């Protein structure tokens, strides 16, 4: 345990705000996103079979043989669902909301909030990376096909990174309704853009990696700007 005089640790800050442990939240995100991936896959395949009016045994047989050849389907759906995890950033701690004043008077004040938000962002990012890696590995070992292969995985992570950064900027919109609407639209837009690009084939891999790199540089910059704006306008 860090010396209490120096403020709270990252994990303590997270626990304070969320009311629950870091590990359980992280596992929920990571495993949840993997399950979402599998769900998206089976949804498509299951539907295909069902529409043909086959029996259950036939459906299962089609499922297992189609799985490894999924290469023809669209990863946008999965990327959208994963990017949706960034919507947790919508949670605000205004003074007028229950808990708002409590958090402002707790040890560390705003710096504890920063640590909490940082942990949340890391959970979102790392879960997305894990999920994307799992999807890529499943494709690599021929278990479940992934259209676009590694590019789709990179697209997924890129979509999450950009979506988070846009959230950080969206709070600057004065009108609360516009701000929330924009925040939700970023999920759609990011996943739409980054989800559809892999369909163009493997020649987009290098540009994609560049896009991701830019995103990763923008990420801490937008977070810093978010914190300074948030402190000035919402916290104080």
């Amino acid at each position, binding site marked *: 345990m860090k010396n*209490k*005089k120096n*403020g*709270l640790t990252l994990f*303590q800050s997270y*626990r*304070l705000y969320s*009311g*629950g442990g870091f590990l359980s939240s992280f596992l929920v995100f990571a495993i949840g996103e993997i399950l979402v991936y599998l769900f998206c896959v089976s949804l498509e395949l299951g539907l295909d079979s069902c529409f043909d009016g086959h029996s259950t045994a036939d459906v299962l047989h089609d499922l297992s043989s189609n799985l490894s050849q999924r290469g023809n389907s669209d990863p946008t759906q999965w990327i959208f669902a994963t990017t949706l995890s960034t919507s947790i950033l919508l949670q605000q701690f205004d*003074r007028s*909301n*229950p*808990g708002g*004043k*409590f958090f*402002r*008077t*707790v*040890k*560390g*004040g705003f710096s*504890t909030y920063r640590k909490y938000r940082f942990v949340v962002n890391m959970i979102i990012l790392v879960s997305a990376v894990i999920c994307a890696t799992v999807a890529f590995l499943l494709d690599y070992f021929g278990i479940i096909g992934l259209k676009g292969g590694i590019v789709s995985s990179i697209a997924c992570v890129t979509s999450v990174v950009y979506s988070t950064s846009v959230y950080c900027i969206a709070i600057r919109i004065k009108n609360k309704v516009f701000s929330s609407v924009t925040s939700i639209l970023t999920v759609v837009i990011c996943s739409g853009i980054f989800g559809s690009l892999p369909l163009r084939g493997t020649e987009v891999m290098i540009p994609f990696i560049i896009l991701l790199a830019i995103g990763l540089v923008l990420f801490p910059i937008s977070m810093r700007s978010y914190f300074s704006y948030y402190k000035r306008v919402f916290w*104080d």
Partner: protein
Amino acid sequence: MNKAVDIVGLKKEYKDFTMDVTATVPKGFATALIGANGAGKTTLIDSLCGVNAVSSGTAVFFEKDSIDNSERLERIGYCSSGNFFPLNWKLKTIAECMAIGFDGFDRERFDTLCTEWGLGSSKDKKQKSLMKMSDGNRVRAALAAVFARETDLLVLDEPASPLDPLARDRLCDMFRSYLLEKDGERSILFSTHNIADMESVTDYAIFMADGKVIEQGFVEDLKNKYVLVHTDAGDSEKAKPLLLTYTSSDTGLEGLALSENSSVLEAVGAILERPTLQQLSVGVLRKAENNEK
């Protein structure tokens, strides 16, 4: 007088409202912040406890010219009005988060208080979330959390408002025990718009209207400074010029005056009485309202 908080020109500006306060919270006593809704009580309390940033002015705590922010957060036991904690929290969550957020939090004491007040314990197997509790119980849970901390100054925003009379009486007892425990070292500042119920524990009163302090002082001194005046209908006109504020009816007048005018008032046939803090508050606040018009 030793001061727990010395507030000088503390200003907070909003679009249509400015708070500008100079006041004292004496050490070792319970101070009531009295005023109508919108008078600025919550703004003042929040500004003192770091919930709001101020535009200018100073607040000196515990007679220390400069105090570290973390020390201030640790030594002051703040509890807002309304919902202090997130509504999806349970007693267990409150206990765990309070322990993280404050060094001096005593979980055993928290559980004892919660059990005493009929909320259960943070160690119970099945716990209700705050959302499912009544307003009164939510406030009790928040107060239990604050009282379970080791503090030198309690700053409570409308702690009695959602409580029933018996609970208010218990709260007054808790205030007295708190002050007694470190005889003279601890202080309380609480706001209320219902002073009648908290009168028996109030030592010092600060009256606010429209963001400013309109009167303050030790209760016994204020009760000596002002006098409650009753006159018959016939003597009303003679008494009126000396009254700060009054209400009239067919039977006569009742109003508040400075007690230095006592002999003159008695000479015109008025009967005088020492006011209760409630009566004093009504008079002082009504006068402020009249001044505004």
